[in-house]
C-alpha cells in the first residue's frame, strides 16, 4: 500500500512524513545518513579517500606530478580538480548526465580549494621558477544517491590529509632532480572546510543531506561550507525556492553544528591508517 502511494503521489507521500518532522527513511529533518570514510584506499595514488554517505559513494584520488613552474606564478604549485559522474552511478543519466551538473560540481570544488585556503600553493613549489608539484585531484561518483557536493568535499579533504609527497633532491651542478620514494612527507593542510547541503521541500521545509529521491522532489538547495568554528568560506544556493534571510542564518547554524561530527570522522579515519603503518 505504502509503495503504491509513494509511486503514484511521491510529493504527497513525502508531505505526510514531513508534517510529523520525520523522513521516510527514519531520519529527522536534521539527520545525516550514516557516513563512512576510508582513507588511503588506492595504493598507486599519492593520497586517496573513499566516502560513503548513505548510498552515495565518492572516490577521490590525488596524484602529484612534478612539472615545470608556471612562469606567471613562479613561487606556486598547481592544483587541478575534476568531478566525474560516472554513467554507472545512476540510471537517471542513462547515456550522459545533465550537461551542467558535473562541470558545476568541478567549479564548486575548484572554488572551494581556493577560497578555503586549505592548501598553500607555495608549499607545492619545489624550486622557485623551475619545478613545482601539480596535484591532480580526481573525484569520481561511483554511486549517485544525492548530495554529491558534501560527499565530494569530505572525500577531497580526507584525501588531501592523506597525501604524502616524496622528498625531492636537486643536484646543484648537473641540475638533475631525484625523487626519494622512501622518504616522504605529508602535505600540510591548513584548513578543513566542511560542507553541508540542505534541501527545500514545498518552498518551506528545510532538511539536511537529501537523497536522490528527495533531490528530485526538492524545490531548491542550499550548500554552506564552514572554514573553521566561526568562519564560513562558501554559501551556494543556485536558484530554486526563495528563502528568508533568517532561514539562511538557520542553515549556517545547522552547518556549524555539523562541523564537529565531520572533523571527528576525519580524525578517526586518519588514525586508523596511521595505526596500520
Amino acid at each position, binding site marked *: 500500500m505504502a509503495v503504491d502511494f509513494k509511486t503514484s503521489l511521491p510529493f504527497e507521500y513525502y508531505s505526510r512524513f514531513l508534517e510529523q518532522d520525520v523522513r521516510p527513511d527514519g531520519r529527522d529533518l536534521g539527520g545525516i545518513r550514516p557516513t563512512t570514510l576510508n582513507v588511503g584506499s588506492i595504493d598507486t595514488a599519492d593520497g586517496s579517500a573513499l566516502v560513503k554517505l548513505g548510498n552515495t559513494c565518492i572516490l577521490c584520488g590525488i596524484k602529484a606530478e612534478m612539472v615545470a613552474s608556471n612562469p606567471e606564478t613562479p613561487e606556486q604549485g598547481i592544483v587541478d580538480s575534476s568531478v566525474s559522474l560516472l554513467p554507472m552511478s545512476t540510471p537517471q543519466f542513462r547515456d550522459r548526465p545533465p*550537461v*551542467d*551538473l558535473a*562541470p*558545476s560540481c*568541478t*567549479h*564548486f570544488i*575548484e*572554488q572551494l580549494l581556493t*577560497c*578555503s*585556503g586549505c592548501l598553500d600553493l607555495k608549499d607545492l613549489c619545489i624550486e622557485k621558477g623551475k619545478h613545482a608539484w601539480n596535484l591532480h585531484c580526481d573525484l569520481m561518483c561511483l554511486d549517485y544517491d544525492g548530495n554529491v557536493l558534501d560527499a565530494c568535499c569530505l572525500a577531497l579533504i580526507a584525501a588531501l590529509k592523506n597525501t604524502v609527497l616524496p622528498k625531492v633532491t636537486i643536484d646543484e651542478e648537473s641540475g638533475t632532480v631525484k625523487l626519494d620514494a622512501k622518504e616522504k612527507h605529508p602535505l600540510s593542510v591548513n584548513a578543513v572546510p566542511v560542507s553541508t547541503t540542505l534541501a527545500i521541500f514545498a518552498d518551506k521545509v528545510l532538511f539536511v543531506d537529501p537523497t536522490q529521491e528527495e533531490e528530485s522532489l526538492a*524545490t*531548491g538547495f*542550499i550548500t554552506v561550507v564552514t*572554514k573553521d568554528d*566561526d*568562519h*564560513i*568560506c*562558501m*554559501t*551556494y*544556493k*543556485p*536558484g*530554486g*525556492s*526563495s*528563502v*528568508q*534571510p533568517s532561514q*539562511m*542564518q538557520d542553515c*549556517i*547554524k545547522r552547518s556549524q553544528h555539523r562541523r564537529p561530527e565531520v572533523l571527528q570522522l576525519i580524525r578517526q579515519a586518519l588514525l586508523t591508517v596511521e595505526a596500520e603503518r
Partner: protein
Amino acid sequence: MMLPTGSEQCQLRKMLGELSRLSQPDGSAMLCQGTSTSLAAVYGPRDVRISKELVDRATMDIVYKPKTGLPGNDARFLERIIRSTCENMILVKQHPRTSIDVIVQEMQDSGSYLSCCLNAVTLALLDACLPLKYTVAAVTCIINREGELHLDPTKSQEAELNQAHMTFVFDSIDRNVIACYAQGCYTTQQYHTCLMACQAASKEVFSYYREALTKKLT
C-alpha cells in the same frame, strides 16, 4: 565590521539597458552596469526536441557564451545558477511541452558579472513577455581587506585580496533570497550585513526594471 559610510560604496553603478536589441528573438536585452555589459536573448515558448520534452512544464535551455574560447566549468556553473533561477521565476507549468531558450552572451566583464547577466536575463524575459511569478534582481558586494563593504565592485576591486565576494538574488514580492553565491572567509554576522545591504540595493534594480518597461510600453 564597518558599515559602508561613503556614498559611493553603497551605491550601484549606473544601469543602462536596451530592450528588443535584436530583431529575431522573441525578447532580448542588453544591459550595462557601469561598464559590465551582457546581452541576453530569449526564444519561446517554441517547439521542443522530443527527447527533451516534459509533459507538465516547459523545458529550460540556457546557454552562456564567453567572449572568447569554449565555455568551461565556470560557464556551466553560471548556466546552472541562471537555469535554476529562471525555472523558479517563469511559470513553466503554463507552457508544457515547449522549450524556453535563453542565450547569454558575455560582452564585457568589468566586475559583478553574475549580477549583470542575471539582470539582463530578467529584462529579456520581461521583453519576451513570458509569464513570470515575479522579477528578480541580483546584487554583488565584496568585503575588502579592511573589512569594508562595497556594493557592485569593479573588476579591479574584485581582483584585490578581498575577504569575501558575494552575489545575492532577490525576488520582487517579498525580497527573499532566490539564489546566493558567496565565497571567501566571513562570519555569520558579516554575511547577514552583506545580505541586508544587497537587499536594500535591490530596490534600485527593481525600479530600473519598472522604468525600462514603462518606457517601452508607452
